[in-house]
């Protein structure tokens, strides 16, 4: 764990769910024996992004909403390194929602960890697409007029191959989820419910603790797409956590690229002058 330790002090609010996710990702990487030099952690912009300098490893902290295509490009360039992208519900389901759709569809072999606190924390408590309708927020003293996006129903409509839900208050379970996600063949979506003690007064840590249950305790079959979807979508009484759906039989983006079949080198290793003599022939 000390290999990932940074001397920089945390800046999150007391009781923020980001602490739990921070602990879980470090533990998952250590248990998978991935040293800090052999991974790339990519952060979107938001409170979660302040993790970027609170641990070691090769890291990137980019633009609001754009982390997925950056992470995908990095992965395509060097498939040997595990690439993990982190983003909040604000960016990922507004500015970045197109990227999410196409990342699932493209089936890039990367992990996406959604820091889901139901609002824009860093910009001081505005509504995200996942904030409940009518909830009073900083831009909406009368309650937000827009309907709430059902993020899990939306995601399942994209036919993902790995969907999990964790809770920042259960670091042990989240660690196991993250280990499975990192080992997944294609795009792994990990929704992490977390408290925002400062701005989220509708889904508090205590409420999440009471509502969450582990699917592994109830013999859930993670290969059943329809059941998984139902379990993921219905959070009215209880909230299912754990690996909800997993399918390791779908080739990922890189595996589907015909020109990359049988290649043992990565595009990073292949940067050298390419002899175009043959390509010039068609022009003579």
């Amino acid at each position, binding site marked *: 764990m000390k290999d990932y330790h940074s001397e920089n002090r945390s800046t999150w609010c007391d009781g923020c769910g980001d602490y739990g996710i921070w602990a879980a990702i470090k533990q998952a990487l250590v248990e998978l024996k991935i040293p*800090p030099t052999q991974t790339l952690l990519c952060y979107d912009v938001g409170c979660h992004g302040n993790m970027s300098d609170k641990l070691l490893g090769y890291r990137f902290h980019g633009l609001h909403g*754009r982390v997925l295509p950056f992470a995908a490009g990095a992965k395509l360039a060097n498939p040997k390194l595990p690439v993990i992208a982190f983003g909040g519900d604000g960016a990922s389901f507004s500015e970045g929602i197109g*990227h999410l759709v196409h990342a699932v569809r493209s089936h890039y072999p990367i992990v996406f960890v959604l820091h889901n606190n139901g609002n824009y924390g860093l910009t001081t408590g505005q509504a995200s697409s996942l904030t409940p309708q009518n909830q009073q927020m900083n831009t909406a003293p009368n309650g937000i007029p827009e309907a709430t996006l059902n993020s899990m129903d939306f995601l399942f409509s994209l036919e993902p191959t790995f969907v999990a839900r964790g809770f920042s208050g259960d670091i042990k379970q989240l660690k196991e989820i993250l280990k499975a996600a990192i080992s997944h063949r294609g795009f792994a979506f990990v929704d992490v419910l977390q408290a925002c003690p400062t701005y989220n007064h509708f889904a508090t840590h205590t409420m999440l603790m009471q509502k969450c249950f582990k699917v592994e305790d109830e013999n859930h079959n993670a290969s059943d797409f329809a059941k998984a979807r139902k379990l993921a979508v219905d959070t009215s009484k209880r909230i299912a956590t754990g690996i909800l759906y997993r399918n390791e039989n779908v080739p990922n983006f890189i595996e589907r690229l*015909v*020109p990359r079949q049988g290649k043992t080198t990565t*595009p990073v290793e292949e940067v050298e002058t390419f*002899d175009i003599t043959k*390509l010039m022939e068609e022009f*003579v």
Partner: protein
Amino acid sequence: MSRISLKIVGSSGQGIDSIGEIMAKALKRSGYCVFGYREYPSLIKGGHASYQLDTSDEKIGSTEVNVNIVIALNHHGLEHNLTDLKPGGILIHSTPDWKFPKEHQKLIDRLSLQVIELPIETVLRKLGAKPILGNVLLSAFIWSVLGQDIAGLKKMVGEKFAKKKDLLELNMRCIEEGFAMHKENASFTVPMPKPQKKWQKQLLITGSKAMGLGAVHAGMRLFAGYPMTPSSPLLNYVASTQNDTGIVLKQAEDEITAAQLVSGAMFMGTRALTATSGGGFDLMSETLSMNAMIENPTVFVLAQRPGPATGLPTWTAQADLLMAVHTAHGEFARLVLSVSDSNDAFTLMNDAFNVAEEFQISVIVLTDKQIAEALYTQEPYELKKTKIKRGLVTDPEKLKKLRSSDRYAANAKNGISPRWLPGADAATYVAQGDEHSADGSVDETASNAKAQLEKRMKKMETLKAALPEPELYEAVSCEQLAMSNDAVPEIDILLVGWGSTKSVIFDVLRSSKLKAQSSKLAYLHFTHLWPLKTEKFIQLSKKAKKVILIEGNYQGQLGILLKQETGIDIQEKILKYDGRPFFYDELLKAIQEKIEALPTRSGSEDPSGSRTTNH
């Protein structure tokens, strides 16, 4: 220099391009230099389109307004393109019983134009051939009009249909019929100059394909793009090579994605490229700013077309120079350069990657619709000279000694701190989009903000010092003129320009029509546009009687940058902003007029440089 030009007109999708391509290649193989130019509306089928070939026994790189032969595939061509002919020109068409209106009839008489109707449909019916073969028939007829050998055309078409025996035979018969048709109309001839062997082995290539080859040769292993004319031909070409090159090709969901994909790929350590046009580049500008902060090398191709908005999607412009120089928030170093033809479209790609990686900055490579789609006759590329420079720490011993705080060390020499790749066995760092200290940790202190900004801006000064001055070309030979501060050449008229106008300016400089005039002409061509090297320009503009800015935009954008950097305001401008490139005869006339207005050598000369020339 003698030029022969032919223009094929009809609706988009009628086979104009296929005739154009057959003729272009056949002419080149026969020993002519060919320059091909397409005009078409933003439609898949229909609309009036053209494919013009300008040929010569000498180097040629432009299109002329008035041509020797017009081939009209439909009656729209008869209506619109008769006026494109030179005196004595030939119009070939296959519209039965066409009656020209009175003013056209007068024009035909006045310019002694020759009009010939070919019974294409009748011949095709006789041969039992499909309408598409009418293109071969026409090509053969033109080939004969140009006095060329039937064997050359047969060989070319033969190669194309080598594997389709039945089609091959029909094609050959069409060629023979085409020649026979000309025998019956033998008075229609356009004699070509004597062919030159040196053109035969050259390439016939568009700027987009040259750029694609250049990028592949430079070690580009990933391309991500979103379709937008006129950058799509590059995307399409690179995609078409993927099975030979093994590159990763990703058609992205939008331009932001494309820019982020290549940024991630470059960050990880491969060479990656994206290309777009103005509207797409607008979307990429935030990513440009991001890469400046994390000092991530990236290369963007910006293929210009007229805006604003959708503008003229399939036409050309040089109007995004100021955007390339200024776009994206914050102050940071960048390189803006422009290709000008099929030669530097190839060579500058490796230069762009080298600068991007060595200086850890973004490089914007400008091109335009003219370069992207024009067909150039090109010397096969010299491959041995290419040197890839990456500016990376890769030595395991050196990597071990690195500290995280070396990555963005503010005191780095020339502002360039060591860069090493994720996965390297070394201290790790964070590429931080927030202002950061040396290891990438967020640091908002005033002293750090100042030190880091100065570090990044220092790269601009380092880069400027390393860049070459613009190239000076003399008239007639179009060879580069050497110059130093002590030896500034005597020049009467200095033309100043950048990008695709170079090759048409060269054709004007080579023109025998200008040779007769005694004034000494030279052309100053800017390849590197930002940061801008100005020493040569200052020296030359002091000495020249007249400086003329030639640009494909309304404001004279290079002129604005030159004035900003030197205080010298170029008063004489030849500007064009109607979506069309400069045409040879049009530019020749414009420059001739400027020369005629020139005072005699003994006239008063203002040496200050920042002066207006007399009107």
